[in-house]
């Protein structure tokens, strides 16, 4: 996107981040995390800046962590959700975005159920845009916080092998993670039933498999250093992608038996919200390997780093 990677204007895709920028963001997030141990968590760098969370889709953790991140950096944060706004009166995406941006906003954090919505908005408005999830396309800050959590657990990400398992077709998290993990030098294997494997998967930089057991045990593509379970997104499904929930759980759920296939140190990630008993068993979700709550904690730090990087100092870009 931008000519000079140093002037990161928007964060729309994990592909906007080169390796140096991604590592810098993760380092900044670690510093932000350390500063949160203090009694007074508020830091001054974004004082006087306004961030609007423009959410056309339901969200708990992403929206609240963006809100907390902005507030801890002293920005003013306003939440606009589609329900109860002019969107429910039929206003178009462009008009809504321009209206909000016209109020003198410095950054828009956008979630929308249409792929590419954030990128479209970035082309219309003059402020910074952060993609907080667009349809089944991308969710770059989720990939960053997953990378942050992996770094916490595994040390370096370089050369590690991460298995991403579940509903890939409907997952924006999977795409962003494959891109970012590759940028950071990791190897990715995607595991999904044939019906939930996206049609363009051949162009992704990863191995693919339908057989979860051979991947987890390391027989297929070598030992797995971390497992990322994805939610079965029933709200995006229109037809029968698998015969029954029970059959999915047997075929692709992370059961206690499958946990035992993993090496001792391998953490289990899940972007949440979890369908317990479907893609992940309670033994896996609550066990020692689980870093699900670490991921949530990382969310605030990582989003602080992103907002800081975009907003602190790119003032002259926004004229």
């Amino acid at each position, binding site marked *: 996107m931008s000519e000079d990677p*140093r*002037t990161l204007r928007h964060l729309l895709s994990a592909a906007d981040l080169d390796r140096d920028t991604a590592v*810098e963001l993760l*380092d*900044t997030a670690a*510093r*932000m995390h*350390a*500063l949160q141990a*203090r009694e*007074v968590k508020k*830091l*001054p*760098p974004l004082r006087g800046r306004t961030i609007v969370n423009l959410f056309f889709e339901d969200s708990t953790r992403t929206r609240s962590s963006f809100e907390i991140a902005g507030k801890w950096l002293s920005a003013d944060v306003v939440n606009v959700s589609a329900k109860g706004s002019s969107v429910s009166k039929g206003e178009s995406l462009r008009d809504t975005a321009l209206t909000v941006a016209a109020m003198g906003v410095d950054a828009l954090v956008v979630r929308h159920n249409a792929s590419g919505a954030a990128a479209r908005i970035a082309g219309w408005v003059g402020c910074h845009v952060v993609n907080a999830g667009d349809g089944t396309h991308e969710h770059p800050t989720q990939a960053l916080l997953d990378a942050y959590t992996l770094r916490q657990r595994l040390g370096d990400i370089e050369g590690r092998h991460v298995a991403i398992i579940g509903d890939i077709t409907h997952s924006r998290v999977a795409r962003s993670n494959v891109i970012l993990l590759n940028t950071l030098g990791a190897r990715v294997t995607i595991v999904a039933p044939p019906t939930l494997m996206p049609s363009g998967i051949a162009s992704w930089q990863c191995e693919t498999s339908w057989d979860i057991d051979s991947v987890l045990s390391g027989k297929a593509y070598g030992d797995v250093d971390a497992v990322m379970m994805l939610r079965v997104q029933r709200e995006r499904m229109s037809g029968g992608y698998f015969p029954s929930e029970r059959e999915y759980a047997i075929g692709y759920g992370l059961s206690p038996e499958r946990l035992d296939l993993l090496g001792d140190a391998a953490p289990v990630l899940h972007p949440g919200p979890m369908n317990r008993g479907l893609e992940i068993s309670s033994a896996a979700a609550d066990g020692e390997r689980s870093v699900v709550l670490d991921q949530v904690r990382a969310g605030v730090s990582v989003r602080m780093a992103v907002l*800081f*990087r975009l907003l*602190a*100092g*790119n*003032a002259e870009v926004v004229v």
Partner: protein
Amino acid sequence: MPSRSRTPDADAATVGIVGPAAPVLSAADVARVIDRLAHQILESAAHAADGGCALVGIPTRGVPLAHRLAARIADFGDVTIPVGSLDITLYRDDLRLRGARPIVETREPAGGVDGRTVILVDDVLCSGRSCRAALDALTELGRPRVVQLATLVDRGHRELPIRADYVGKNLPTSAEQSVRVLMTEIDEVDAVYVVGGDADE
């Protein structure tokens, strides 16, 4: 500070020192200046009553400088002074002009800063804006009894009403010039250079 670059891992070649320019302070000069600063701190602050004294370095090069001062003070006066570091990036007033910079570690000196004489340590004092940011950042750590400032080089050009309590070397410079302090811990050599405006970025 506008005319001062602080590339953390730069060596002499990459910080823009060109040609045969001799350093304003050689390694021996730097050692002598640090010794004198240590003596001065020892005389006036190191034995500060209630709570004692702590050195807090401002990254990047203020941190090794603070450690060296503490080591010399320990040699001369047989007192151990705790050393910390203080990241000021988030408190700078020029963030919007200069862009986001990497944040570095803040480490509280052992025993904290409350009720103590805290001496901020920086390599170059120029506009005074780093020091102002450091004062803000320090407030977040606690409430020192007294805050002082020690600097290896004072080059003038103050933009704020700030004055150093301990000055290693007064170095009159023009606004176009820039002062580069190199420290062994980071740059593999001790030296201070004045770099002409045209050799600068």
